[in-house]
């Protein structure tokens, strides 16, 4: 499975994820070299989706670790199940079990709560799991340092049990919205890829593959409209996720063409800030739709 770059492109396309050659090559190399992928890009360009699709293709589990400020070993690696340990302790004391025996008993694996990183490393040999470490930029430096350790050796040491080594290196995807620059040491261990907003043609392919039954005319107009929006200076530019949401919304309303009124009513799918919506309304939605149609015709002529 996934023996060549073309194969990666094909399999991803089969799952409805349109890659470009650069992305496919990076994914392929990540598999071949056993190195994590570090994906950066604006929100909504499909970073997280790479891991999800990968898990589907490899027919394996997707283990997800959502990062946040203050995330620590207890939530990322493992934690002992203290309440259960205490209960066990009381029970065994009541039974009169030998003290040392109790000590051994309560630090068994069944009292261990496996958090994502440990789960990924302990996965069975048959399945090479996909580990998604989402929005790393939200975590803090301490966590980065600690991630560095796990990602370079793929092993975790639990004092009571010993060192757990990965039976096989998981396919690791790290994503970042680049709200802050991550430490170079971490990035150096990964293959780096910046995912940009898609081009007009690529976005058309994406919409066609994700929104079943959508008409060509509507697809063209939506994608043209999105290209125009992204040229504008918004607080938050819409990503591909927004395009798909919007296309689905317009489909649900049984539209086959953009219509100023409906666009106005569904702008919330695309722009998420009040100021941005006001800005586009100042520009005039009807004019934008006209421009989007023109853009399409120009592309057609080419």
């Amino acid at each position, binding site marked *: 499975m996934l023996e060549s*770059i073309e194969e990666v492109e094909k399999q991803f396309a089969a799952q409805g994820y349109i890659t*470009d*050659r*650069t992305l496919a*090559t*990076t994914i*392929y*190399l990540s598999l*071949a*070299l056993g*190195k994590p*992928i*570090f994906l*950066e890009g604006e929100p909504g360009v499909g970073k997280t989706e790479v891991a999800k699709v990968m898990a589907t293709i490899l027919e394996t589990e997707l283990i997800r670790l959502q990062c*946040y*400020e*203050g995330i*620590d070993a*207890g939530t990322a690696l493992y*934690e*002992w199940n*203290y309440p259960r*340990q205490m209960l066990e302790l009381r029970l065994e004391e009541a039974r009169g079990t030998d003290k040392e025996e109790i*000590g051994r008993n309560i630090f068994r694996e069944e009292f261990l709560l496996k958090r994502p990183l440990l789960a990924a490393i302990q996965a069975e040999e048959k399945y090479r799991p996909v580990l998604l470490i989402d929005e790393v930029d939200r975590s*803090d430096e*301490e966590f980065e340092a600690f991630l560095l350790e796990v990602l370079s050796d793929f092993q975790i040491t639990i004092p009571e049990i010993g060192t757990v080594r990965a039976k096989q290196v998981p396919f690791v995807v790290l994503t970042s919205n*680049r*709200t*802050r*620059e991550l430490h*170079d040491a971490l*990035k*150096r261990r*990964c*293959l*780096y*890829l*910046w995912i*940009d907003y898609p*081009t007009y043609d690529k976005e058309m392919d994406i919409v066609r593959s994700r929104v079943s039954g959508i008409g060509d005319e509507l697809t063209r107009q939506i994608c043209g409209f999105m290209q125009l929006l992204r040229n504008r*200076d918004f*607080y938050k530019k819409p990503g591909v996720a927004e395009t798909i949401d919007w296309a689905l919304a317009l489909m649900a309303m049984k539209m086959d063409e953009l219509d100023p009124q409906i666009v106005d009513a569904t702008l919330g799918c695309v722009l998420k800030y009040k100021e941005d919506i006001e800005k586009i309304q100042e520009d005039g939605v009807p004019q934008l739709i006209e421009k989007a149609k023109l853009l399409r015709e120009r592309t057609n002529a080419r």
Partner: protein
Amino acid sequence: MPKTMLGRVVRFSRLLHREGVEVNPGNLIDLCKSFEHIDLQQRVDFYAASRATLVSRFDDLETFDRVFNSFWSTPLISEDMTLTDTDVGGNSDLDVQADVSEVVDSADMQEDVDGDGESEEVGYSADEALMAKDLAAMSDREIEQARKVIHEIVNIIANRRSRRRVPENRGRELDFRRTWRRNALLGEDGVELSMKRRRIKKTKLMLLCDVSGSMDCYSKFLIRFIYALKREIRDVEVGVFSTRMTAISRLLKTKGIEESLHEVAEKVHDWAGGTDIGGCLREFNDKFARDMLHSRSVMIIVSDGWDRGDPVIMGREMARLRKRVHKLLWLNPLLGTPGYQPLCLGMKTALPYLDYFLPAHNVASLIELAKTLRSVWK
């Protein structure tokens, strides 16, 4: 892998290094390993592989593409390789056929500039003397005093509780992990509880200094002091602006303030021409804000507010900025002048968006500043 190819790859990485893209040997080895898996005849694949392994930051992508396109403009292995692939970089406006020698030349020149700069750094520059004009004749004791005051100010604004817990005896939450470990050793006689509490986290500090004409020496003074506090607040970013906005944090890491500003001045023409605060803020918001600010950042703008740009733009950019940061401070040395009123248009525009508008022209005003902050900052 053929030897000639290895040689070329190494030369390529050196060139990247010269152009400011940090390439370490580990990444280079990764690239060489990847050759076993890709078809080197495919220029696009070779491009993707080298970009994924050698680059690790967004800012370097442009440089990488440029160097790649000029260095590898000749066939990799054989003559019959197609070079017409426009997909490389997805960036058709790049000058694909840029001359290799040109890149090398510019790299050499860069080095020369660096060399000169180092020799200049040795002595204090003439600007140092200028500072005396504004900040009066500060004695060593006063400078030390000022340092302490700024230290205190920074402490006041920079400490906040993080979400991360650290062990602390008088903490409020029970630390199960540690309690368990400790008592496993103690045995059954009594239980000692370990507590934890939220750690204090240093806020990020962003200093944006006006370095046009009259503000120049004043800004240098502040940058120097704030930078001396690097130990207390690890996250300090410094930007300077006049007609253009430049981030100098990276420069300051390797060079002194004088040299950093010197380098900036060389790049930016019209250094002494009036200040375009609105335009500079816009540039900051567009290009730098997302990297340098987060919602808990404290931003300090140092400027006299004399603006020759468009006040409408300035107002809009101030509003954008206000949304991005936790606190927005404006230090204006003129505010120390008796009878000063913020009448100039720039200052008037900025006022509604500021949390604090403060003087800071001498040690006494700095002490005042510290007092104000202490009283209002929780």
